């Protein structure tokens, strides 16, 4: 039996978020939120481990109550239980305070063997939280893993594969461990509709809502006061105009191509 905890973030669908150049802010009004897509890969990995080795999958999220919708989707995919950490005092957290809060909550769950995060979030793209949780809990952590090779349930040793730019690294570690999953390493399953309906109707049975009082956290390490990071300014990256021309193949066209590429100083 393995206990797995998957960290999930309820994020605005960044594809719909537009930049207001005048104010230098993001326009989030009217934008629907979604489960951070890489986290779906994390849930899928946890569920596939559960199918193979047995165990329990917890999903945890620190968010305003709106994230319940996302947690119901996680339950529908097959997670056994979800925990929503929601408290005004958690607000304003950067990745460090977030990781601390999550770590304290995970500690509260009790026994945990594998803690899984998505590679990064689409709204802030730091990739910090996985490794930070590992550091705070004092256990090993591996980022961007591709797949689990083997888990020895008696010796509690996990073997896993991590993809790097020009090769594959294979790791062996004692459990518990924190991993973050590379994007697109698996195909997240479809949330079972009838289970989604069950989660909707009997929310309390599947989802627990925890506040600050439910975890043992130091006040100065959570929320805004626990966050050393400050966002000074946001600027929009200039969009590059991409152009395409289609030609029938001929020698002249080849020469033209070479000429154009020279003009662009590519050649």
């Amino acid at each position: 039996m393995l206990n797995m905890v998957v960290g999930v973030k309820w994020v605005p669908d960044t594809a719909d978020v537009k930049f207001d150049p005048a104010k230098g802010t993001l326009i989030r009004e009217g934008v629907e939120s979604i489960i951070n897509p890489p986290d779906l890969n994390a849930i899928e990995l946890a569920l596939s481990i559960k199918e193979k080795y047995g165990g329990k999958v917890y999903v945890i999220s620190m968010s305003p109550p709106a994230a319940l919708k996302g947690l119901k989707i996680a339950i529908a995919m097959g997670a056994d239980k979800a925990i929503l950490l929601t408290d005004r005092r958690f607000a304003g957290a950067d990745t460090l305070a977030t990781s601390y809060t999550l770590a304290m909550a995970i500690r509260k769950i009790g026994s945990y063997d594998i803690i899984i995060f998505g590679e990064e979030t689409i709204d802030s793209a730091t990739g910090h939280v996985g490794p930070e949780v590992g550091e705070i809990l004092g256990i090993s952590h591996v980022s961007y893993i591709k797949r689990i090779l083997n888990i020895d349930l008696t010796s509690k040793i996990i073997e896993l594969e991590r993809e790097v730019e020009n090769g594959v690294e294979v790791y062996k570690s004692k459990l518990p461990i924190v991993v973050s999953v590379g994007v697109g390493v698996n195909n997240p399953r479809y949330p079972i509709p009838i289970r989604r309906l069950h989660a909707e109707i009997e929310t309390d049975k599947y989802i627990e809502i925890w506040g600050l009082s439910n975890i043992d956290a130091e006040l100065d390490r959570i929320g805004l006061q626990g966050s050393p990071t400050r966002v000074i300014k946001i600027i929009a990256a200039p969009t590059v105009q991409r152009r395409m021309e289609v030609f029938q193949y001929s020698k002249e066209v080849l020469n033209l191509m070479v000429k154009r590429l020279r003009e662009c100083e590519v050649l």
Partner: protein
Amino acid sequence: MIIQREHFIMVPEWAILILYISVVFSLIFTLYGVYRRFSIYRIHNYGLLLSTLRKKTSLVLQSELRLLRERYGGLMHTLIVVGLAILAVGTFLVFFEYDILMRVNPNYRILTGSIYLVYEFILDLAGGLLLVGLIMVIIRRIIFKPNRLENRVEDIIVPFLLLYGGLSGFILEGLRIATKGLQHTQSSFIGYIFSISFLNMNNIEKIYLAIWISHALTLVVTLPLFIYSKLRHFPLFFISPPYSVYEFKPSFNLSEVLKSKKIDFKVGLESIDALNWSQRVNIDACVNCGRCQDACPAYRANIVLSPKAIIQKLRESMVKGICNVVTDLALHESEIWACTTCGECVITCPIFINPLNYILESRRYLVTNLGKVPTSALFNIMVRGNPYGLPRSDRRNWMRDLNVNYAKEDEEVELILWIGCAGAYDSRAQKIAKSLVLLLNKLNVKFAVLKEEECCGELARRLGDEILFQEIAERNIETFRKYRFKQIVTLCPHCYNTFRNDYPDFNMKLNVKSHVELIYDLVVNGKIRALSPLNKIVAYHDPCYLRNYNEILIESRKILKSIPELRTVEISKHFCCGGGGGGNWIESEGVRINVQRLEDFIRDNPDIIATACPYCVSMFEDALKLKDLEGKFEIKDLCEIVCSGLR
């Protein structure tokens, strides 16, 4: 000499006794069969049974016409049905005269004089028709052997048995004429022909008796076959409900479930137990004729799916009492997902069986209960409101440079234009949407679009996620209630069918028109006139959701006719483009349905293949690419052709 029916000529008393006894046994055996069958069906609503009987009786002619769409098979069936029906009535008259009237008074007769002569003539004719029909059956079964027919034991026994019954009847008649030399032989014209060869025969009485007994036994055996063999389709025809393509109804109402907070319903066809009695009767009526299989685009392409096999497998499991539909044996997942929901099998079946419904109910089971769906389109709809998975805010991109207004909640608008996900997101379909807007602008037709537009839910319903479908439907219905409008026009036949046939289940009756109907109206009321000539040959492909689901086929052709110089070619047989029922989103292996359908058209070498559905357009354009025929044929939506002809 009195002309009248002579009963039991040349038959001794003991043989008549044998006949009566075996008829009684045959009746008991048949009734036992009926009892057994009814316990398999679990019929409990006899009121409904009676109303079905009335409805189906009125559909006999339509059923026969469906059979006659195929000339050989149809003619064959009609000959047998007419022949058997007349012979049955004739035999009943004899029974009525001999066993009822003459028991009361030996002088009471109906089959006398000229009535009897006409009777003999009609019965000979009926017997002749029956024999021709049966010989056609046997020739087809043994010589032509069409692919879709399997020769099971009953498929051979039944026609030969009936053939023997008919032939022996004529031989008996011939023998009677040969011995007795009846005067009025001209009315029994076939019997007379038979009699010629018997004129100088010896031992005629013994031979007669032997054949008479075998003829009588044939009839005795045939009666139970109407319940024990595929001939049961005849009685079952009248008590099995006439299912149409719209039969796909929800088993629960989501908003009521959310209110009551009780999940006490089952979704989909998990097991044979989930079939209600009318479905059971319906399935059992299938004779394995395979007309649905010939009409199925998925079968034509890859033989993965045969609607006939689906019904037959369900039937077998039902009769044997095997329970699980999807997992045990009956239906395989690959069959279930190969279906394009075109509905051709449903509108082809002469008995009005609906194989599609069982496929869709199996999808409901697989998806709603187990989450098994072979495409990410559903997840995309759930998260982003469109099957493409593109951002919600991109839905408006297509109308950027166009004169399009959003509907306002406080202003009534004549016409709401519902673009649909394809028109909004697919780059090819966006052009169709633009054409429709230009067309309406040029004709000064006032319209507005809804800023809340999202997926109509069609794909969710056809792919089997009934919960997602109802969530979407409720949201859209809420949107519709916010606005005041006279009618809603759709660009996509799938949205159209959903609004017209699915939303009424949730108390939303919309005045919905497809863009084909709208353009047709504009042509009829003279708003569209004097179109520029188009000197091209156009072949029109009917979208299934207009043709099979909503019977919109004349309108499209009339629109094409209104264009000067345009010539049309008709493709005789309708097949789906492959895009429906999730086909556009599920990767298929082997021959592609769209390529095959394109080949149907390019045989006639038209300049343009016209259609009226963004899925069809995209399926055909993909097929052109696959066949390396890009640029050789144009694929156009009707509204694009009309719009470019407006001056």
